[in-house]
């Protein structure tokens, strides 16, 4: 029983952590300054640990969010009262943080809903500063704003924890040595820096949608975080660009299928077998609304094409009614803009639908660099199965099996292997 209730606490804290940690780190970094981001992260970490320790022995507080904020505020005030920290703070809040007259009120004010949003926007831009490589920008955002662990980031990047840890360390060194701040970018840099922010949100969404974490194929909360941050961008006229709306449309279309992607046992249901009456009509409609808004400018972004592909699927009455020719054209357009092996892999699956499995096998086998990828091998095995070569299919499915640590994916591949007999 005790273990069960501890698990319950861990689950809620994990969800809260991702949902609230990003907000708290953003606000506390706004207070302490970008160069003192580690102090902000330490306070959030301490707050979460404190919550775990306190909550697992008693009842959860009525409002866990308020509990977290109050604890974080108190820790922030304690830290600022220590002289050495006070003198390290150098921003527009300094005057308020220096005097007891205003210290506590100022900290409280920063945890108001509007200020939290403002801090998150500032943080999004700060993470995307031109001093950082694109990888570093994305890593820092996922770590600070989205509450992902180093382990989760490393799997999103198909990298390892050591590499990500080092990357974060170098990024923070740069913040200090170049004295970077949380100021908004100037008008000239607004669009390019918003684009980088969007790329990060796209990656975050994929991390949630195609999670490689065992036993949790669908991390709905990660997708929600990405959508929430993207909506935050549409609420500010400076960041409400056509590509912002295109990305949001893409997210709506994908997430509309959430409830049908797993069966009641937690096993994967493929697109072909999903119950389309259970797709979330509201989200498909929202997707169509954002898609229309994304068309209001002359700019075509990768997100427009990807959203269009998702739109064809989301608006098709059945799998058989899917306009595969249209999807193929869209994939070709996407690949023409930038070559991406995962996009090329998906295109091969479409080729399988239009021209048959043999043609898909030829194209898949001509591809390089994905031999160690679970999805590549699953797709290739499927094509061999459809082409009637079950022995070869079985062999390739077995290879795919060795490349995943996810229970749901393992179960799906096992089902495929069984159908080879």
């Amino acid at each position, binding site marked *: 029983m005790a273990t069960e209730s501890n698990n319950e606490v861990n689950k809620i804290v994990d969800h809260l952590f991702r949902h609230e940690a990003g907000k708290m780190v953003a606000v506390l970094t706004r207070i302490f300054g970008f160069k003192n981001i580690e102090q902000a992260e330490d306070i959030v970490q301490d707050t979460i640990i404190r919550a775990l320790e306190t909550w697992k022995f008693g009842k959860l507080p009525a409002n866990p969010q308020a509990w977290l904020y109050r604890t974080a505020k108190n820790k922030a005030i304690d830290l600022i009262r220590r002289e050495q920290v006070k003198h390290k703070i150098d921003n527009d809040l*300094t*005057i*308020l943080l*220096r*005097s*007891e*007259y*205003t210290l*506590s*009120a*100022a900290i*409280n*004010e920063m945890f108001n809903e509007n200020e939290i949003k403002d801090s998150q926007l500032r943080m999004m831009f700060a993470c995307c500063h031109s001093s950082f490589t694109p990888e570093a920008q994305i890593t820092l955002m996922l770590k600070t704003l989205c509450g992902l662990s180093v382990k989760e980031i490393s799997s999103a990047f198909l990298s390892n924890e050591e590499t990500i840890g080092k990357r974060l360390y170098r990024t923070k060194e740069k913040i200090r040595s170049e004295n970077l701040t949380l100021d908004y970018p100037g008008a000239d840099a607004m669009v390019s820096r918003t684009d980088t922010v969007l790329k990060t949100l796209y990656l975050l969404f994929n991390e949630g949608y195609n999670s490689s974490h065992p036993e949790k194929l669908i991390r709905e909360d990660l997708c929600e975080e990405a959508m929430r941050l993207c909506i935050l961008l549409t609420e500010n006229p400076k960041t409400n660009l056509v590509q912002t709306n295109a990305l949001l449309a893409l997210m709506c279309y994908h997430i509309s299928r959430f409830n049908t992607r797993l069966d009641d046992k937690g096993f994967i249901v493929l697109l072909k077998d999903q119950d389309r009456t259970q797709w979330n009509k509201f989200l498909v409609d929202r997707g169509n609304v954002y898609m229309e808004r994304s068309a209001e400018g002359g700019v075509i972004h990768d997100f427009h094409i990807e959203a269009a592909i998702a739109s064809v699927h989301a608006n098709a009455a059945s799998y058989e009614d899917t306009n595969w020719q249209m999807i193929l054209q869209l994939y070709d357009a996407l690949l023409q803009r930038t070559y991406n092996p995962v996009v090329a892999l998906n295109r091969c699956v479409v080729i399988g639908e239009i021209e048959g499995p043999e043609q898909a096998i030829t194209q898949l086998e001509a591809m390089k660099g994905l031999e160690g990828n679970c999805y590549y091998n699953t797709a290739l095995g499927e094509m061999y199965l459809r082409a009637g070569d079950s022995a070869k299919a079985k062999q390739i499915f077995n290879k795919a099996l060795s490349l995943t640590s996810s229970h749901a994916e393992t179960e799906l591949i096992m089902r495929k292997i069984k159908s080879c007999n």
Partner: protein
Amino acid sequence: MQHQSPEGMQAQMQKWANWMTELGKKGIMVGGEPLQMSGKQVTGAKKVVTDGPFAEAKEVVGGYLVINAKDINEAVEISKGCPIFDVDGMLEVRPIQKMDM
């Protein structure tokens, strides 16, 4: 202050924050702290220590602020924005005595 509701106290603190931010932006604010209502008094060559609160003092000093002003008149004008008047309080404005030797 202690007779106010938490909501009222928060509103009052917000006024202080707004006022001090404004002074900070204008470069007027140097610093300052609120003081507790009790403390110790140390008197005379024998340094006699007695406990506060200081009953003989008509008004207890609740805090201090150091500001930049060109003269006492400007300082008085600035002081009129102080939220202490919302609770019917009082303040005293005094120039810093330069100790030229």
